[in-house]
């Protein structure tokens, strides 16, 4: 039984939904960021699986995946810096308490 493309897509869909659930329900800001990283990894699996099964001759899928990893690294750095700065000011990393801009 050889591995089908749809298996990879199902796996990535599952990973994306798990990450989405984590990003939307966790109260700790760092945990939210971890959920976002899971979602980005699910996208990467999708990209590389489509590259492998559809158009192996061109490296577009892998190039796109490398850019996703790059942007995820930049975003994680800035996001975590923000969390550290907020913690320094308010002594909390609970996203429900970060509501000073609420109307």
């Amino acid at each position, binding site marked *: 039984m050889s591995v089908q493309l749809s298996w990879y897509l*199902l796996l990535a869909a599952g990973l994306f939904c798990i990450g*989405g659930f984590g990003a939307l*329900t966790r109260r700790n800001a760092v945990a939210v960021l971890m959920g976002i990283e899971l979602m980005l990894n699910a996208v990467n699996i999708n990209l590389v699986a489509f590259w492998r099964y559809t158009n192996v001759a061109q490296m577009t899928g892998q190039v796109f995946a490398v850019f996703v990893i790059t942007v995820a690294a930049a975003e994680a750095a800035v996001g975590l810096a923000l*969390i550290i700065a907020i913690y320094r000011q308010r002594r909390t990393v609970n996203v429900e308490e970060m509501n000073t801009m609420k109307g």
Partner: protein
Amino acid sequence: MEAVAFAILAVVTLGGAIMVVLSQNLMRSALWLILSFFGIAGFFVLLQAEFLAVTQVLVYIGAISTLIIFAIMLSRNFMDPSEPRFNEQWGLVGGFSALLFIGLATVVTRVAWPVSAGLPPADAIQRLGIDFVTAYAVPFEVASVLLVVSMIGAIIIARDRE
């Protein structure tokens, strides 16, 4: 044989991801995340994208996970372990996530993807490198600028104000 490897990696990756989301201890969540990332690197090897697998390990596990652990340690607010992990919408969000997964799974298994049997080229990594400096040179440079900007921004944001 490939299917066995796929199954094992799927258990590792999805199991790690579930434990990331459900774990009470934040540090344990970070370690489960690292396990998930290793599983994904394994998937990249299975998909014959070896350069991407190594990049995944170097960047995600080596840099991003380390950053996450740093941030966890620098924001320890002696959180009460009995404090709930989830906000009060977890049921609704869980339902929507399951619905999203069912929708995606339905689409993914019904569509006839244009699968073309073929092996990756023998000089895949060379082609990747050539692509980065010829066809995708502009996004490559923009990504470099993005990294510099984010590095400067992160340093300034997290800097100690005296």
